[in-house]
């Protein structure tokens, strides 16, 4: 299962739980599983977050695959000026 870590304030919506092992095969499935476990978290995953899969940051992409042994970080979205 993928190892998933929430970074920053998202843990306030999961009673402080920051790390999960989840059988997610895509970013969309990851968000679904996280939302099922912690319903308050769900809406915050729709916008404003990025997902780092094995070190590579992905933004605004639900269909990106996640491998069974991936390390995934859910981090704030980034852009720039």
């Amino acid at each position, binding site marked *: 299962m993928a190892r998933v870590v929430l970074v920053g304030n998202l843990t306030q919506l999961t009673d402080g739980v920051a790390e999960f092992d989840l059988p997610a095969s895509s970013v969309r499935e990851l968000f679904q599983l996280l939302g099922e476990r912690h319903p308050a978290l769900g809406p915050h995953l729709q*916008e404003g977050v990025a997902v780092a899969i094995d070190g590579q940051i992905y933004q605004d992409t639900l269909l990106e695959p996640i491998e069974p042994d991936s390390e995934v970080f859910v981090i704030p979205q980034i852009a720039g*000026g």
Partner: protein
Amino acid sequence: MAPTLTTDSEVGQTFVGTRTVRPDGADKVTGRARFGADFNLPGQLIGRVLRSPHPHARIISIDTSRAEALAGVKAVVTRDDFPDQSSEFVPAGEMMMNYKDVVRNVLAREKVLYEGHAVAAVAATSVAIAKRALKLIDVKYEVLPHVIDVVEAMRPDAPVLHDDLFTAGVEPKATTPSNIAKRIEIGHGDIEAGFAKADVIVEREFKTQPVHQGYIEPHAALASVSEDGSAEVWCTTQGHFIVRAHCARLLGMDIGQLRVTASEIGGGFGGKTVVYLEPLAVALSKKAKRPVKMVMSREEVFRASGPTSGATVRVKMGATKEGKIVAAFAELKYQAGAFQGSPVQPGVMCAYAPYDIENVKVIGYDVVSNRPKVAAYRAPGAPISEFAVESVVDEIAKKLEIDPVEFRLQNAAREGTKAAYGPKFGPIGLTDTLHAVEKTNHYTTPLDPWQGRGVASGFWFNIGGETCCSLTVNEDGTVSLMAGTPDIGGLRASLAMVAADEMGVPYEKVRPIIGDTGSVGFNFLTGGSRSTFSGTMAVVEAARQIKADLCRRAAKLWEVPVEQVQFENGSVKPIGEAAEKAKPMTVADMAKVAGKTGGPIGGYGRINAQGAGPSFGTHLVDLQVDPETGRVTILRYTVAQDAGKAVHPSYVEGQYQGGAAQGVGWALNEEYIYGPDGKMQNAGFLDYRMPVASDLPMIDAIVVEVPNPRHPYGVRGVGETPIVPPMAAIANAIENATGVRFTELPMSPPKVLKALKERGLNKPANGKGTNGGPAGH
């Protein structure tokens, strides 16, 4: 893992990596190029904005009747012309944006929240009439106490800007309105255990002032609304698709009804990723039934457009005597301006990004105060946090008597390092930039008394994002390239170079333009150092489609299987068993028969580019401090930064130099000066002192290339990282020259002189000085 877009194996690099002539150069140097204020339409009206004279006040009433009655006034708009927006956060770059705030920033509703806040706008037949009309708009205010400084704004007794703003990210949940919009925290390890292991601990507090992006071209927009409800806008912007989205949302239009054209841009640096005049111009044009043109004055740019945050930052770092950083803490307090959304989040994430540290904790606060809502400024948030961190890093290195570059190398993030914000880095070039700087002649040139040398490193994540690009092969074999991301730093040249190499045609035969929102699919704005990275990926995609299409056409022409046709060096040619059946045909040859072989030839890249690689940089600066005046003169400046692959090296070097120049201004002179009345006192370039050409030496640029494995050419964005290190590098150099550690920006002459005098370090008139001044290392 999604497949990486790679360039086709037969593509050579004839143009990529060279210094081609820029396609926009002739028009720009002759004055032919059309910037935002250069567009005009027959019958257009002039729009002007009435702005608040108060930094904080409740609006009791707005009476526009006298203005509307003035001959020559064709329309007046106020808050009543913009439907209110419900609270809804949407992504807007590095911050989430709330449309409820956006509509209130465009035109004040319940309150004015900064001096310069727009209250109403008029459209009239002349500038003089528009100005007179503004004076006839009667606004009754209830003036309220104001607060500017971030620490002052956080006090429990500070004037509260928003009665419905409760601090997010705290436990228990806040029940009293506050100016603190949000608290955020990241980190890993055990910070207390880390400090317990340290032999040296340095803790300092730093303060920075708000600074403006300083783009030389003010905001400008021309809008024309038709009676059928459709509209066109021409404006200077970093994101015309974002302008379209905002205007449509704020004015209740279908997105497809609005067509926005981005003009050439005289600088943006993040400050033109938001809307100010555009919705007003559209609203006025709709009411007046005539085009409306609006241009900000320089004073308006300062008083009413978003600069970056001022901030207070506390940093505490600990290291072993061997030089290993074992603990790093920072607390960042950033001004957001009138509405929430400062870049404190990326500031928090970037602060310790250059380092491999086992125990890290960074806290950030997003704080509103009565100044313009901040807008992005080149690596938003990072220059501020890095100024503090890199200053402390330097101080620790000095205490440990370790060379500052060697100290950074010892602790540098490398491939596989876990970043403070979570994920591990892929291939990165920080150590390459440090080594590059170490090897320069600059690093070892002796210094004289009162001269100092400083070094600092920095980082930006970079992004990709939604990007569309079309390539069209014209009847004569030339290629028209249409991109949708405004060109703020050489995009057209870079895209044309990649297209030329991909298609095997001469660079001069590729003509790039930036299309309007009706001509090309959605493109995210130009920011996040994304445009070359993602634009070139879209070009590769489009070129690949064309090459495949040409092979199919040739196969039919030659009556051979398509597997026996190959595109190579600008031609389709038969291979294998078909090798002798036909002669190769160039792109131009195929273009001549395009109609006969299926129709126009083109390709369309539509992607959401992922795989942006971060760019690290290291800056080295020599300077001289005049102990009699406090003036700091930059003597020599070197930037080494990782570009992955420099498509056009001159543009990459230009980004390094431009970022460094802006950092010099931020370090030495620039600041918003507010009076006790909450009004900006230096709203003009005379008193808001930015560097000019005579202030700076040539900035040497070293392009390091650690290829980004996720880009077909290895490209990394480069535009933002160069503004991150300068302030710390300069502060470190001043410390090296004077022994004085400055923790407040700007380090302007009066402040430097005062600090020197307080320490008895200022020289008498003969210039030699009783103290002599320390020599650089």
